[in-house]
């Protein structure tokens, strides 16, 4: 048993060092999260190895042999107090950096660009502000076949909003973004492993999340809160590109008013499916 415990300690450390499975290369500002994680790995790893090896030593050194008698030692307040102090110190060393980073996580920078994400079973839609830089109001009451995000047709701020229904979300490199996330059915979660950040999306309210893309590329966005039988297939794509490419892409997208005009024309052509009765 003692030998096996030593092997477990050694094998665990070896696995950690040699594992080909490690986090994805980071693509956002949240490298602080990785740093905190590494600190936690070091502290907890050391504690694990020390305690398991100590146990292994005890099991070997104090194994039963004929005539052996155990010591009688009910407690040792000094030793216990010392251990509590050391533990508290270790805990503080992990908690303090964690809380510092969290305070950055919860404070969105004022220059962050707003982007809306609408999650529905089982797809992603996105909305970016148009030339006015503001997102128009939206509500579940306005949702219809030609208005999947439920934008308020009366709100002028929403007319120039870029609506992406079924396509990829593009973001500009180095520009902080604040995601405003909504759902019209169940709880979802927006997660891009390379960004490290994630947040649940709750129907009936708007949740938010901010980060700054720090690397160009194309990344999988997945739903990370179980949302029904096709949860695993609810996938999207985020493309991070430099500012000019992003602008060019944005200009090619249709705004809300353009989409509305198009769907009116198709309806007039009699090609449109009958609108579902919204009770």
């Amino acid at each position, binding site marked *: *048993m003692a030998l096996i415990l030593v092997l477990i300690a050694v094998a*665990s450390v070896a696995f950690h060092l040699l594992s080909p*499975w490690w986090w994805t290369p980071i693509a956002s500002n949240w490298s602080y999260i990785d740093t*905190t994680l590494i600190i936690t790995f070091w502290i907890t790893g050391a504690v694990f190895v020390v305690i398991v090896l100590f146990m292994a030593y005890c099991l070997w050194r104090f194994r039963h042999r004929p005539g052996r008698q*155990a010591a009688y030692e009910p407690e040792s307040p000094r030793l216990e107090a010392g251990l509590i102090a050391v533990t508290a110190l270790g*805990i503080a060393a992990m908690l303090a950096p964690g809380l510092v980073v969290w305070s950055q996580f919860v404070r969105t920078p004022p220059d962050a660009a707003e982007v809306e994400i609408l999650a529905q079973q089982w797809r992603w839609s996105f909305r970016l502000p148009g030339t006015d830089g503001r997102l128009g109001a939206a509500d579940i009451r306005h949702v219809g076949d030609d208005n999947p995000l439920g934008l308020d047709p009366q709100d002028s701020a929403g007319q120039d909003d870029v609506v992406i229904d079924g396509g990829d979300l593009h973001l500009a490199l180095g520009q902080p973004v604040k995601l405003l996330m909504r759902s019209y059915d169940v709880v979802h979660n927006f997660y891009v492993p390379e960004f490290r950040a994630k947040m649940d999306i709750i129907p*009936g*309210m708007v949740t938010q999340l901010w980060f700054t893309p720090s690397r160009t590329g194309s990344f999988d966005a997945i739903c990370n809160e179980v949302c029904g*039988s096709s949860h695993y297939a609810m996938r999207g794509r985020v493309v991070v590109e430099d500012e000019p490419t992003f602008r060019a892409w944005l200009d090619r997208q249709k705004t809300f008013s353009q989409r509305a005009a198009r769907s009116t024309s198709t309806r007039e052509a009699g090609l449109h499916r009958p609108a579902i009765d919204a009770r």
Partner: protein
Amino acid sequence: MSDAITGPQGGSPLLPEADDLYHPHSWWTRYVFSQDAKVIAIQYAGTALAIGFVALILSWLIRLQLGFPGLATFIGPAEYYQLITMHGMIMVVYLLTAVFLGGFGNYLIPLMLGARDMVFPYLNMLSYWIYLLAVLVLVASFFAPGGPTGAGWTLYPPQAILAGTPGQEWGIVLMLVSLILFIAGFTMGGVNYVVTVLQARAPGMTLMRMPLTVWGIFTATVLALLAFPALLVGAVMMLLDRLLGTSFFMPAIIEAGQRLRYGGGSPILFQHLFWFFGHPEVYIVALPAFGIVSDLISTHARKNIFGYRMMVWAIVAIGVLSFVVWAHHMYVSGMNPYFGFFFATTTLIIAIPTAIKVYNWVLTLWRGDIHLTVPMLFAIAFIVTFLNGGLTGLFLGNVVVDVPLSDTMFVVAHFHMVMGVAPILVIFGGLYHWYPKVTGRMLDARLGQVHFWITFLGAYAIFFPMHYLGLLGVPRRYYETAGLGFVPPSAETLNAFISLVAFVVGAAQIVFLFNLLHSLRHGAPAGGNPWRATTLEWQTPETPPSHGNWGPALPIVYRWPYDYSVPGAPEDFVPQNQPAPIRAGAVP
């Protein structure tokens, strides 16, 4: 009240004489509708282990899909979500909670405290039969139209009761009804355990002379009595939302293009209710395991548990703190993010009393006389897996580190290690340890060794590497990960490896089952006290103990439960009911 039970601390007015007990009149009332806590314990444990085997088979099917996607054509996405939901719910509630409190609690509380039975035997019997009913309702959902619910064991609304989730029609209703029944049944048992501990201890059995097993079960029961009502409320409200169309948890919803007649409810409210129960639930399972493992280590290392008083206070402190950490399951739930500061701090503080317990277990080994019996092997394996799972808890409790790891396989690996593998190892250790008292026969030690090594090393090989999949970003509750760019092909190899080990570990449980049944008749006779232990359950006049436990006179307690290897004593253990003052220990 005769002189025989007037101990140093005086008698308790609630101690029943043997004549006051309800005596069975027939085979039915003796073995089926029994009011004897020992029989109820066996019924509870038997039912829980039986449903646990169902959960084990479900876990095989889960691993079949994850390790070899597409191989089992009968597992589609809907079936997969039903599998994980039922596996989780059965393991957490119907196996772990029931086995520790209903099984070990019923058997050990009266015997370890020198009581004749639980104080409310009829209620105790009712508790089991309602639990059985809850299990049957749960099992019925497998056969209901649409199958059991596939909402995930957390049952988050709105999806739990909407059409996009499998089992929406019958499964979720049966699940909620079953939970409500379970809670009602548990409350009847729980009231019993608490009152028995407080009122029916033998003369001399002060609270600070109780074995840590009883402290663990007692504190866990108090937690359960306070935590389960939150789940009850959540279950009742969700049932109303589902059946009567109320909107406690349901905001305005569009489902498949249709606007539903819901509005104004809060999905997050359910999450708070669920985790207000759900986090103490972790300790409802862990505290009895802490207690039992303390007694196993002390007995088999022939040494008093190190720092008994600190161990008791650590149990109580963990119990109290466990009620102020629940929202660490909800860091990325969309709740007010400033809660994160509070809940991360309380969560990491709870690590301190927990660490004390680990230190004291390993310090008990120091300068002991360690017998590597099968129960001891399981106890040591518990420390390793619990330590591992506890340390990864520091990742997830530290709010910002949780963000990337939340809802990934890292979480799955963490909670399986800390509240799956670790408590189950204690259940096995406890069964090997107390089986001789329950049946009068020893379990076969060689089969026990085979069972132990496969289970321990296998479980470690399953769950340790799994953390690294989570670090990579592999989400939990994914039917398949094919097509995800960040998941390399090597992750599939690892998944296949984990699945193969899981099949072997699962199969090894058949060895245990065989041992359990075979030794009933063919095991070596155990005698009254095969482990030479100090606690009262080993000092009964008969083994297995008869109805009423103690014959004509209750035992009188003179010392704490850990007088092992006392200097100057003729043997290396001094039973709690042995009067001769051998040495005044530093602890009462």
